[in-house]
């Protein structure tokens, strides 16, 4: 059984079909990239998978449970227990330190544990920046805090919405390397991006166009390592 399965999912805003009968399966431990031009429905799909938004129609099975018909409260619980989110704009609480931001996720999930949170920061290589505020961290460091926050509760699936959109190449590499490690540990990853370099690293890439799955490519020689395209 797939970890995540979308069956004929549509999202309609007024007359705009942001998602138009999309079906998709994500297996446990898979690393999937979602690509597509702006307005193709990437973010909508991400929000629906992430239980942040509700589909207009269709079924979304997460771990065999249909979350499409759940109410807001149940969706909150699903987000808390099964999903780790990473955003393009990081979204860190400005008045909390890095470690506190990580603990925030623990707090809502179960019990905050500073030691565990510090370990998570160590995994993303930020042990020495744990007590800095987001404003004192670089973009890459902030995004690594977000990664630490996303993985702290051992979610079934980690969703990243343009995780490298605000980062330079060096930081991009660091974040992708973190994803590779997560993948090695068996974490399911769904990365929404329009950066081909980031998409290429994944095992499988689907490309959305006008709310539909346009095509799908499997990365034959998957290594999880980023290959830079040098621009002429």
């Amino acid at each position: 059984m797939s970890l995540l399965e979308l069956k004929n999912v549509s999202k309609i805003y007024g007359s705009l079909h942001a998602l138009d009968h999309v079906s998709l399966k994500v297996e446990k431990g898979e690393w999937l990239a979602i690509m597509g031009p702006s307005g193709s429905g990437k973010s909508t799909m991400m929000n629906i998978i992430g239980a942040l938004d509700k589909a207009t129609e269709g079924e979304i099975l997460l771990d065999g449970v249909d979350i499409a018909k759940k109410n807001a409260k149940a969706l909150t619980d699903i987000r808390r227990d099964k999903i780790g989110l990473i955003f393009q704009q990081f979204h860190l609480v400005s008045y909390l330190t890095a470690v506190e931001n990580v603990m925030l996720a623990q707090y809502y999930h179960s019990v905050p544990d500073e030691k565990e949170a510090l370990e998570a920061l160590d995994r993303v290589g930020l042990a020495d920046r744990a007590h800095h505020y987001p404003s004192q961290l670089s973009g890459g460091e902030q995004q690594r805090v977000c990664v630490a926050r996303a993985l702290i509760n051992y979610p079934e699936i980690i969703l990243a919405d343009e995780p490298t959109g605000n980062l330079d190449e060096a930081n991009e590499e660091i974040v992708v390397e973190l994803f590779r490690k997560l993948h090695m540990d068996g974490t399911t990853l769904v990365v929404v991006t329009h950066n081909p370099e980031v998409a290429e690293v994944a095992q499988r890439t689907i490309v959305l166009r006008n709310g539909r799955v346009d095509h799908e490519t499997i990365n034959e020689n998957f290594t999880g390592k980023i290959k830079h395209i040098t621009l002429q």
Partner: protein
Amino acid sequence: MFVRMIAKAFLRQWKKMLMIAFTIALGASLATAMLSVMMDVEDKMNQELKAYGANITVVPKSASVISDLYDVGDENVSGTYLQEDELGKIKTIFWAFNIVDYTPFISTEVTLDSGDVEQVTGTWFNHHMDLPTGETLDAGIASLRSWWTITEGDWLDEQGSHSGDYAMVGTLLAQKEQISVGDKIHVTGSETEKELEVVGIFDAGGDEDELIYVPVDTAQELGGLDGKIDSIEVSALTTPDNELAQKAARDPSSLSVSQYETWYCTAYVSSICYQIEEVITDSVASAVRQVADSEGQILNKTKLLMILITILSMIGAALGICNLVTASVMERSQEIGLMKAIGAHNPAITGLVLTEVMCTAVIGGVAGFYAGIGFAQIIGHSVFDASISIRPMVVPVVGVLVALVTLIGSIPAIRMLLNLRPTEVLHGR
């Protein structure tokens, strides 16, 4: 483009702008209401203080010298009176508008059937006057003796059913002579004798409880004192005394011309007295210190109290507005950061933010001003049963206040915005 940006800001953030406008409206209404009430409170309390009765007494010149402590009793001996036909002139003086009530008194002695000699006082009860200005005035002791309680019967109604030989009797006398309402008492004066029908018995809690009160004509006929009156009690709205008024009260001729002008044209009790003396022949008008002084004191205190409360609420309103403006401008740091990033200069940003805030302030201020008038009227009607008159002064004061406060409120926020580094703002703060 500037206009377009501002219009857009209003359209897009209408909720936020509405809230700022609402808060400014609250502050403005508070300021308007409090200022209006404060400026009118003196007049209104002055009216209320009329409950203490007359604050000026007018007596004939010689009578003021001959003391009533002789208790000579025989009025004819002194032989000085004021003229009844001059009474109307009191409402023609410079401060006529401030004279809220007045009533003449004429006393004469009568002999009752029991053989007791009692004093009969002629006065107005609710005398109706048509003034040359076209106004009308109901004057008399019905309002000047507000503390009297009518223990039996009713007030003598001069205008209606009781014109003629009717009387009101004090409780003590009524007890002594066994008089009750409806009785006809036969009195013999020095000139004529009359049958007086008693319409009311009153308790004044003082010397007046031993007197008989009748309309002026009746008393004059009894004593043969046609057209004569003993004294006038005047109730006037006055301005509390200050040094100038005290100096003038001692001797108006000691003032310089300009001081005299100021004094004459201010409603000091002494200047009103002086003006009454000018119109009533051979009269001496003097302030009843017990009433006039205390009135001044209470008015001053009330006014000061209201001023301080007004200041407090204005500070509150000002800080409230400042605060909200600061809070809501700070909220837009991201937008401003972006503007700076795309090359907006500081003056341009300041201009934009200020124009937005000022537009909101104008809308809020106007709405608040009218709401404030409403609040002032609510206060006026429920406390004083009268409208608070809105002074034109309030408009500029509130206007300047709102503008100033909004500007000052924007300063910390604008300073903060100007110090923003666009990179910090745009990169996730």
